[in-house]
């Protein structure tokens, strides 16, 4: 089924898109893993409140543990992966930890504290695997085709996230029991882990890893990567979080609250459809151009929200923003990073961006409380346009 690619000896499949086998394998792993994790996410509120009888306040405490765990482990895991030059091992540990959490959840019984610990461990597994996985993708494709490689991966990943809730409610409907959802989710996660072990190949760089006691400082010593990080973080600060976008849409359109969970599906569908074409476009036109295009779509989202635009306009634009920026940023960053610290570099970029976005939620929330939703949108939109003046740094 596979033929050898000419460039850099990377194996490519004959799917017409010339997507490296390793990228397809990682995409499959993530599709399956996301089905598994979104199955649990979809039924967790029902399980906690109906089956365990937790009150809303106790549920809020369990939920709050999600935050923060991911960031710390992402950096630590990335450092380990680079030091050992064993990205597959570290990512595999992350997948295995999350899989084990599926069975630990029903075993935790009715204790909110234990359930919180299991949820945090699941997040930790996700934090551990993200950067080594993205480093593997960036090392598995020809540098000129990285945009497409990340596009394929992200499209498959999001497809899994869309299928997860469907699978969960199908199992719940067939069995009427939450533990069946957890057991099926565990089986799906094991399958993902098995595909990972069997089909994903570790990539070790030829150059010996440079032992650096302060990898972050060494990485940011590179001017191009530093500017890329700064641009991404600055844009993160003016990116209004999805939750606000959906809340505004719901208010503007007068949608019933129960329909709120449907809005992210529209964004995800657009993301799935656009990730590959925009990744390929990024490879052809340059990643900077597509990255800018994505952020212009974000400005359009703000504009549409401020003008009470319809959801059928806002959701595809938001999907376009993610399709044009998420994988494309990784594709731009990968080649800038030195051998031996690629995982740490990507982790640093992802963590910085995530922290900036968290801070932006606080800022926008405060602006909304003080001045209403629209002035904050205008300020954030102006911020995006100002940051885009730095777009040349993203190549």
């Amino acid at each position: 089924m596979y033929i050898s690619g000419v460039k850099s000896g990377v194996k490519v499949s004959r799917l017409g898109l010339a997507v490296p086998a390793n990228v397809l394998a990682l995409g499959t792993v993530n599709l399956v893993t996301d089905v598994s994790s979104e199955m649990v996410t979809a039924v967790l509120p029902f399980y906690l409140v109906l089956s365990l009888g937790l009150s809303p306040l106790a549920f809020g405490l369990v939920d709050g543990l999600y935050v923060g765990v991911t960031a710390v482990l992402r950096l630590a895991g990335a450092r380990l992966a680079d030091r050992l030059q064993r990205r597959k091992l570290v990512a595999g540990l992350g997948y295995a930890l999350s899989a084990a959490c599926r069975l630990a959840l029903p075993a935790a019984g009715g204790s909110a504290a234990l359930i919180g610990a299991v949820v945090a461990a699941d997040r930790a597994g996700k934090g551990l695997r993200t950067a080594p996985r993205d480093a593997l993708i960036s090392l598995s494709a020809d540098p000129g085709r990285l945009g497409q490689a990340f596009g394929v991966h992200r499209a498959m990943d999001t497809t899994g996230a869309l299928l997860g809730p469907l699978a969960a409610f199908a199992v719940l409907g067939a069995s009427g029991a939450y533990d069946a959802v957890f057991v099926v989710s565990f089986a799906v996660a094991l399958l993902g882990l098995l595909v990972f072990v069997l089909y994903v190949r570790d990539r070790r760089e030829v150059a010996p890893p440079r032992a650096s006691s302060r990898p972050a400082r060494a990485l940011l010593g590179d001017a191009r990567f530093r500017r890329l990080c700064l641009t991404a973080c600055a844009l993160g600060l003016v990116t209004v979080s999805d939750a606000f976008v959906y809340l505004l849409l719901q208010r503007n359109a007068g949608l019933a609250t129960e329909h709120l969970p449907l809005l992210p599906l529209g964004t995800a569908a657009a993301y799935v459809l656009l990730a590959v074409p925009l990744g390929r476009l990024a490879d052809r036109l340059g990643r900077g151009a597509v990255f800018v295009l994505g952020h212009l779509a974000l400005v359009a989202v703000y504009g549409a929200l401020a003008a009470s635009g319809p959801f059928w306009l806002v959701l595809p634009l938001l999907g376009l923003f993610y399709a044009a920026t998420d994988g494309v940023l990784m594709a731009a960053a990968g080649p800038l990073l030195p051998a031996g610290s690629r995982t740490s570099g990507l982790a640093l970029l992802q963590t910085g961006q995530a922290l900036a976005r968290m801070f932006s939620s606080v800022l926008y929330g405060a602006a909304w409380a003080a001045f209403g939703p629209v002035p904050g949108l205008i300020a954030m939109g102006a911020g995006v346009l100002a940051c885009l003046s730095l777009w040349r740094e993203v190549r």
Partner: protein
Amino acid sequence: MRRGVILLVAVLVLGGGAAGYTLWPDRPAPAAGGSAVDLARPGRLLVRDLATGLVRGSRTRCDRFAAARGTGVCLVARPGAVPTTHALVLDRAMRPTRRVTLAGIPSRARVSGSGRMISWTVFVTGDSYNGGAFSTRTGLLDTRTGNVTVSIEEIPLLKDGRRYHSADVNYWGVTFAPDDSRFYATVATRGKTYLVEGDYARWQARVLRENAECPSLSPDGGRLVYKKRTPSGAWRLHALDLATHRETPLAETADVDDQVAWLDAGTVMYGKGRDVWAVPADGSGGPRLLATEASSPTLT
């Protein structure tokens, strides 16, 4: 090739195991036979069976249940991408007479002592902008007029003598006074919970004190039992004498996360773990087991 075989075997084993676990009929089927429950017969203790979800002695399946004087309320969850709850009003023979569709997951259900007023709380995820928060909808139904208040969060609220405004108010856990108009409930706003006293007829509410959730009023209307958060983070049941404002911790020392119901004039009952327990409402004595593998205790 070998990888393919391993994967195929794994798919068959895992798929077979998952399908078997999902479809294996080890879950008890609903008991056959007619309903022997008469909600109008006073003094009968009813509980919801954890394994089947049925109100014991009946064929009615509920996620939350409460009843008094010939009226029952049964909250049934409809899980899905758009979670909804059916609030069913039941007559004395447990037959549904009315259905209200609500957005959210069932959390609390109550019927006033006379059987006239019904209240429910559902729990809504996903409409909050910061991940760690939640939101609740508490509604009321007057069976005499048929009026439904889908959410009481618009009720004018007084705090420290002044009208209180905040977009983040969440109400839950209503209990009714014998006059079928006054009620007590929890309100949460800006990270704190308060006990409020409301009036359905006059449509206003005021904050009574901080840190008291899921109140339950004694049949004589003189005492409230609620759960109070201790510094360790656990909830402990407390009783409040409404005349003297004296607060007494009950003899149940475990972390209880339930809205208690009154078993008699001096005893409350509640779900703890997988069982229903009772404890004197004056701080004396100790908890005793009422029913195993059960929840939603209610006295007709």
